């Protein structure tokens, strides 16, 4: 670019002077030759490439709509810490400060919990039982405990049946073999099977039984916890150390008053030393610090509990169909492991099948689930058979010979009894709705037509639906 085309700037004179040494000392106004401001380059140069615009002036605000790392629209809020979301999802809320205290609500009492007089009444759960139930994860996040001031249960017809079974177990005369009740709770979705299980656990806690509750069979079989083959088992069984350790800590916490008073009587060959004169609670708590030894500890604890003179045992599981099929675990030769090959499940299933009875008596209770139940044709069929056996023994259904049968499941449920959790009667519905109204959660007069309406809307007294239409659904 020739200098003659350019417009010289005054301010640059001093700089340009350096180029012209000969005149620099004499003339301040000598014309410079180097251009400092020119529009020619952009005018004659190639057009600017797209996306290569000059950056904005410092301090000006610009609209930045670019996607990507530095764009301001990116969500910069703090993420919840690992485990926070799950904790929120699994949170159990057992009280509602906005609900009214029900003055007529009476707590269950140890002496009367098994009596038939409670039928049709809503009863409160004593605080220590609530703590124990919470420790064994008997409350489920989907249940409506968070709606009321404190946990209370309706003693329905099925509860009375269950209580009668408890009385039978406890009433076995000395010298006779102690009775073991084995029941599967069945019923429609939201008919209160898990709550019935909770009621069973409540009775067991109040009658000073030892309670072992597997809160959800799904957790055992969906392969979310560590597993390892049990050495020396034929065919191979698999132990789940972390899960078992957690279960043992739950057992120790929930039954602390009973286990704390029972001493260890036999010598167990445990991989870790057990202090002498320790109690069963200490034995169970040993697993918390040594999860790798949790299975031998569980076996030892069970052996202790089945010694003569020990309290009856309540063994319960929810969501039964998950353990009546193949688990998600894989064996060493990449074959699915049947749930019954998991040591803990095997332990439960053997008792449910009646293969190993409980010497001190007790109850094995399993609840099916209506909402999260993988198909298990053998379980469905066994339940049908058990129902038919109770109702009309003349016509027992036959297995379709063209279908594959899971023989182990059939074997296990061969002679198990079922307890059908059906809809509430209108009297029971009225009782619980009066409790809803007294809690201030149902703002209506509980009259006969109102109860009938809601009872019908709830599919003939399905308690989950009844709660939904009368408490949860506010119109």
């Amino acid at each position, binding site marked *: 670019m020739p200098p003659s085309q350019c417009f010289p700037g005054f301010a640059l004179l001093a700089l340009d002077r350096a180029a012209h040494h000969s005149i620099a000392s004499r003339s301040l106004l000598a014309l410079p030759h180097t251009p400092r401001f020119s529009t020619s380059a952009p005018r004659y140069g190639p057009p600017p490439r797209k996306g290569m615009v000059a950056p904005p002036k410092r301090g000006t605000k610009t609209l930045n709509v670019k996607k990507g790392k530095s764009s301001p629209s990116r969500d910069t809020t703090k993420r919840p810490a690992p485990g926070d979301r799950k904790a929120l999802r699994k949170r159990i809320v057992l009280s509602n400060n906005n609900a009214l205290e029900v003055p007529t609500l009476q707590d269950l009492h140890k002496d009367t919990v098994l009596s038939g007089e409670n039928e049709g009444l809503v009863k409160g759960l004593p605080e220590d039982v609530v703590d124990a139930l919470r420790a064994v994860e008997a409350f489920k996040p989907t249940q409506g405990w968070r709606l009321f001031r404190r946990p209370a249960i309706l003693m329905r017809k099925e509860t009375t049946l269950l209580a009668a079974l408890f009385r039978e177990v406890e009433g076995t005369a000395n010298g006779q073999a102690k009775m073991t009740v084995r029941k599967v709770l069945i019923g429609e979705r939201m008919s209160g099977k898990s709550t019935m299980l909770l009621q069973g656990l409540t009775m067991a806690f109040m009658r000073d039984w030892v309670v072992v509750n597997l809160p959800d069979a799904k957790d055992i079989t969906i*392969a*979310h*916890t*560590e*597993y*390892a*083959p049990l050495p020396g088992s034929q065919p191979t069984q*698999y132990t789940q150390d972390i899960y078992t350790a957690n279960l043992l800590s739950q057992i120790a916490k929930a039954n602390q008053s009973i286990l704390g008073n029972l001493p260890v009587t036999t010598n167990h060959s445990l991989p870790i030393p057990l202090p002498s004169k320790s109690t069963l609670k200490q034995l169970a708590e040993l697993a918390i610090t040594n999860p790798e030894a949790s299975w031998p500890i569980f076996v030892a604890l069970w052996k202790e509990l089945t010694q003569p003179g020990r309290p009856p045992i309540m063994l319960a599981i929810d969501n039964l169909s998950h353990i009546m099929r193949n688990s*998600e*675990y*894989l*064996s*060493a*030769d*990449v074959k699915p492991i049947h749930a019954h090959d998991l040591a803990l499940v095997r332990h439960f299933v053997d008792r449910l099948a009646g293969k190993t009875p409980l010497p001190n008596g007790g109850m094995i209770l399993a609840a099916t689930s209506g909402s999260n139940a993988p198909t298990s044709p053998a379980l469905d069929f066994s339940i049908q058979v058990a129902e038919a056996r109770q109702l009309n023994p003349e016509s027992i259904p036959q297995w379709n010979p063209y279908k594959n049968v899971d023989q182990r499941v059939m074997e296990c449920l061969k002679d198990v009894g079922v307890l059908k959790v059906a809809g509430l009667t209108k009297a029971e519905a009225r009782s619980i709705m009066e409790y809803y109204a007294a809690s201030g959660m149902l703002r209506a007069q509980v009259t006969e037509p109102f109860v009938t309406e809601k009872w019908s809307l709830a599919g003939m007294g399905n308690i989950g639906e009844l709660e939904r239409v009368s408490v949860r659904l506010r119109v």
Partner: protein
Amino acid sequence: MVQVFGFNFPEQTLVKRLLETFYGIGPKVSQRIMARYHIYPFAKVGGLKNAQVLELNAELSNMKIENDLRREVQDNIRRLKDMGTYRGRRHAMGLPVRGQRTRTQITTARKLNKIERGGLGRVQM
């Protein structure tokens, strides 16, 4: 950090993911390896026992993965090329090898069909 097969992995990495970072291990092979050592599908590296890490290392060092496998694949392609076969030439040109049309849609071939297939690999510690 846990070292497996010469690479460091943070504790919170899934074992499945760890295995599948290696050239030559995909979903099936990782499932097989994990089942063999009784590692559950959602296991994280931090949760592995020391013995399991050693077993994994031993298993991986006996397998043809990473650079060994890359070399084998590259050698196979180079052999085709050196013999002057059509397949070798197509590989060298980065074009489809098995008679596909080349008018459109040959991005996969462009991406994969090279003499140095699989790249140079990661650098081991």
